[in-house]
């Protein structure tokens, strides 16, 4: 089948119906999986309805903002409304993990994580947590909209300006870091530009820096900008100021290789570990022709034949976040913030706000090696050992073992304690099973 045809809407049939398995697949890929109850609800909506339920989320979620507070963060815009006491955490990673585990819009968090992976910045002494959180909120707010708009926002994002030294990029001594990674990692790919292009792009972005004092924010410093004419990728730019940078970003998206490059990154996140070059190209074109709208491109993907093909399951290795959060969501763990999930994610290879480099994480089979499988089995053991609670416990993380036993069909012979023991054993086996590593 031609790549273009693979993106056409899939039609359910007698042999290949829209069933709960497919609803669960959609939940796993678009978000971080779902509890049996949630899968049931998605299935009942039909494919288009389920896709819409997952993708058509609002930019902001005031209820969630009131539920989880990051201490020390200056960005609380939703004062408490007299409802339940919020959960307070001090670690920005724990704040984000809570949103992933308990939020009503997992697809939004999954796309936010994609952007963190794509526009990877590392927290450090120079780049503190609350700058990373600001960037994280930017990804959440703009992530499903136009890629061009997101790119422009990143070029001005304070965390990015620090991480790739944009703030040190001045007329008298251009710094190449942002220019190179903008082309190599964010828009075009390796070998699609020359060293000369890197220098010229660096000069275009001279003066794109930070405002002095107050909240971290972008400021264009005209006196630091080299306004001369520039030549990049065969295009000539007239002398100018800040608009040179905007024109350059437009130019990057016009490059033929850009669509396929972004297409491949998205398909490796949402569809399969090794998508064909043709499909990447076709999906990239789909993204471009939807006005670079992530929401619409993803909608096309989730409705497509490529997504629902037989053999289209268990073709994507779960990231550590997928693995951990799908367990936590699927089991409806109470108080997940009381588990040491930031540390778990770190030892499994996905430390939030600390990607290994500006190239993000290495996806696919690399997540699974002899070291990480043991650590995943340790996590399975840890989750299965959580205390039982049928209601939320203030003091600890817990599972509703009665409900889970019912869902797993564990029989009641021998009394409650024995039933719980059998449920725990079944959970350990399920989470440590090789197929749980795949989506």
């Amino acid at each position, binding site marked *: 089948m031609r790549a273009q045809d693979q993106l056409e809407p899939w039609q359910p049939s007698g042999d290949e119906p829209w069933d709960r398995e497919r609803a669960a697949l959609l939940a796993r890929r678009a978000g971080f999986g779902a509890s049996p109850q949630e899968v049931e609800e998605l299935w009942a909506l039909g494919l288009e309805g389920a896709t819409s339920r997952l993708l058509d989320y609002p930019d902001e979620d005031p209820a969630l903002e009131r539920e989880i507070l990051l201490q020390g963060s200056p960005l609380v815009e939703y004062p408490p409304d007299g409802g339940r006491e919020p959960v307070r955490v001090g670690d920005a990673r724990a704040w984000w993990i809570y949103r992933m585990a308990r939020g009503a819009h997992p697809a939004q968090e999954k796309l936010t994580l994609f952007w963190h992976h794509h526009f990877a910045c590392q927290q450090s002494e*120079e780049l503190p947590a609350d700058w990373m959180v600001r960037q994280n909120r930017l990804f959440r707010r703009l992530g499903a909209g136009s890629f061009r708009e997101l790119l422009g926002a990143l070029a001005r994002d304070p965390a990015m300006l620090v991480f790739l*030294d944009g703030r*040190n990029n*001045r007329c*008298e*001594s*251009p*710094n*190449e*870091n942002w220019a*190179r990674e903008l082309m*190599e990692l964010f828009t075009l790919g*390796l*070998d699609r530009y020359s*060293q000369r292009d*890197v220098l010229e792009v660096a000069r275009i972005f001279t003066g794109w820096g930070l405002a002095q004092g107050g909240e971290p924010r972008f400021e264009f410093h005209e006196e630091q900008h080299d306004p001369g004419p520039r030549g990049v990728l065969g295009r000539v730019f007239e002398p100018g100021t800040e608009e040179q940078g905007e024109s350059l970003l437009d130019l990057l998206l016009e490059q033929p290789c850009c669509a396929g490059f972004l297409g491949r990154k998205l398909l490796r996140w949402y569809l399969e570990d090794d998508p064909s070059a043709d499909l990447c190209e076709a999906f990239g074109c789909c993204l471009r022709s939807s006005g670079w709208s992530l929401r619409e491109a993803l909608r096309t993907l989730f409705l497509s034949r490529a997504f629902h093909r037989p053999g289209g399951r*268990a*073709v994507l290795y779960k990231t550590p976040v997928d693995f951990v959060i799908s367990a936590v969501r699927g089991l409806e763990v109470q108080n997940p913030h009381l588990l040491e999930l930031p540390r778990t994610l*770190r*030892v*499994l*290879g996905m*430390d939030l706000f600390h990607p*290994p*480099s*500006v*190239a993000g994480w*290495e996806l696919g*089979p*690399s*997540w*699974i*090696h*002899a*070291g*990480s*499988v*043991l*650590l995943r*089995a*340790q996590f*399975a*053991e840890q989750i299965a050992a959580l205390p039982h609670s049928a209601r939320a416990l203030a003091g600890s993380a817990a599972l509703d073992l009665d409900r889970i036993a019912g869902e797993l069909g564990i029989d009641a012979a021998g009394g409650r304690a024995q039933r719980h023991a059998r449920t725990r054993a079944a959970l*350990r*086996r399920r989470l*440590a*099973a*090789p*197929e749980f*590593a*795949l989506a």
Partner: protein
Amino acid sequence: MLDRRSLLQLGALGGAALWLPRAAAASRPDTRRRLVVVELQGGNDGLNTLVPYADPLYHRLRPNVAIAERDVLRIDELQGFHPALAKLRRRYDQGLVACVNGVGHTLSNLSHFRSRAIWESASESASASPYGWLGRHYTSSMRGVAGLDSPIALLALGRDTLPLALKTNGASWPAIPELAAWKAPADGLLESAAQSEGRADTAHVRECLRSAARASELLARAAGRRTRAEYALRPLARALKSVADVIAADLPASCFFVTYDGFDTHARQAREHATHLQRVDLAIDAFLEDLSALGRLDDVLLLTVSEFGRRAAESGMGADAGTDHGSASLLLVAGGRVLPGLHGRQPDLADLDADGNVKHTIDFRQVYASVIDDWLGGESAKVLGAPYAKLDLFRS
């Protein structure tokens, strides 16, 4: 026979020590020998690690970033170590550390990821091989060999992902972030592996579970070792301590890979490079101390690598100044059998390429060839795809 002092001076004039006996190629792999590769990620600035302080061009190219002559830890009238490397300098004087300078390659690439892939896979072509140079050494000289082949023949410590250098056709090595915490759960990993026997899509996971089961049995023996050596509470030091733990327990792990990220000093190089070099200094020194107490110094070769050096001229101003991606740089080798002194030569700052980068005089694969053949008893031409002129880096 020249004494150590004269040897060092001659080394400073450039060129390897030609008249010491070449280390006889090990006739077959020595099961006692250990290789520890320390990858300094980001691109370590060789020019500021072993500083050509007497070269006026060096100061002219780097008015802010250059190390002042008075601060350098002098080795001779031309060069000296960065001041943060005080302990390594002492080890250098003891003949346990040597420098290999001007190391790079023709596949010059200023991308971290491409360059690191080139160094880790020792790959000729633009599309890197999926396997690493150590992975290929395992395949050609260790697989199926008693005393060498084991579930932990190659080991990445202090890491949560397996580096390309260790990726091997048909084997899965562990990458272990914290050795002490890496214990198989009570349920057993083999039981998990058995769950989806027969499914092709889970073959990789199952294979890794089986490897992990065997590896964790072996590595349990490395637990709880006490040492007098003072390792800092920092990632590289901890990783090297774990390496020492495994060596001390006489486990069948031959090649170790540890990494330390932080050398991409585009800005604030003066402060940042000093910080990271100091951590490297302390960590390697503690490791050598430990090995000495264990009586294993002669069995171990430590090698630092980095994906490239830095641009000759600095960029930026004042304390914010730094350097962009470069090319040739410096490797350090350490261990009881190291041939002390300086190998290779300082890059010529008057002869920069079109990008303003120094030119290399040693291909990194020459270093690998020396290590593979003469240290590990392997077959470098097979591993690297071609023979490379070797260097005299250690004695037999």
